[in-house]
């Protein structure tokens, strides 16, 4: 039962990713190489989900079992997640700073600043 759910999930996610990647490629938001990369990667996920014995066949029973392979994969996924999070955070901060700089360059702000400083100078002269 559990294996069937895993297979179904893997199939659904693979279809989703490949369709989204293909649409992005069609809309020129993604290169063909990227589309190919995601397709191959997710097809590999499907193969492992449906035929887990492939891992043993490729890597050998004694050298690396299915459990160890999944453990290493999990560590790798967490590392990728961390890298993506750090990069997204960095890009978000830069983007926010650009948005702020644009807002602060509004002529209304500099105009109000000029008027205030002129008023201050006049007040000082009167004193």
């Amino acid at each position, binding site marked *: 039962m559990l294996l069937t759910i895993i297979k179904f999930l893997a199939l659904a996610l693979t279809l989703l990713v490949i369709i989204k990647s293909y649409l992005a490629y069609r809309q020129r938001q993604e290169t063909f190489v990227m589309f190919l990369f995601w397709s191959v990667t997710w097809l590999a996920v499907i193969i492992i989900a449906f035929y887990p014995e492939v891992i043993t066949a490729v890597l050998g029973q004694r050298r690396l079992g299915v459990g160890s392979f999944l453990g290493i994969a999990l560590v790798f996924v967490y590392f990728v997640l961390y890298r993506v999070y750090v990069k997204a955070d960095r890009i978000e901060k830069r*983007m*926010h700073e650009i948005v*702020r700089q644009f*807002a*602060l360059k509004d002529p*209304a*702000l500099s105009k*109000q600043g000029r008027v*205030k400083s002129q008023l201050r100078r006049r007040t000082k002269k009167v004193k």
Partner: protein
Amino acid sequence: MRLAVVVPAHNEEKTIGDVIDGIPRRIDGISTINRIVINDASIDRTAARAKKAGALVLSHRINIGQGGAVLTGIKAARQLGNALVVTLDGDGQHDPDDIHALVDAHFRDKADLIIGSRFLSQTIETMPALKWYGNKIMNGITFTFSGKQVSDSQSGFRLIGERMLSVIDEFNMTGYEFCSEMIIGAKRHGLLISEVPIKTIYFDGRQGQNPLNGLNIFLRLFYRAVTG
């Protein structure tokens, strides 16, 4: 002494005019009051309404969140030479008349960050239960990272003094976590934090903060604490 009132606003066309109109024209000890609205990429007539009410309106081209809008407003206020900044929400949940209480407290206590606390006021009874518990959890999270116990860590109604303004460039969080970040930063710099009671007006259709947003804020504060 010059004071700026900064109002972050995202799609607040129904309330922004009244909020700006409600800002006191005269406050004891204050020579000039600047009213600044940061229009955080609203798709309605927030900017036009605020401008009509007499505020200086600066617009973000894309929505970056309440904290980001407050930070832009504070930087604009500093650019205009203001020594004090009061921030309040644009959705009408704060009574602008309470600005008097915050300014009085600043002159009396010499605090660098004064938080308008909904929990110190009698009107707290009008706060929905889920929000009440959400705020309490956020107080706990803020205490964990700052070591400072405050009754209303998520209040957007605040007064920021000169010494706090001088370190404001260190802040860069843009969502609701900005409220906690400000308390953490003030404590780190050894600045004085105090609270005054404020009225709270709750009404149907108010957007506000999702009470379940606490986990997201906790993760962001944790990430910030780890990475510096």
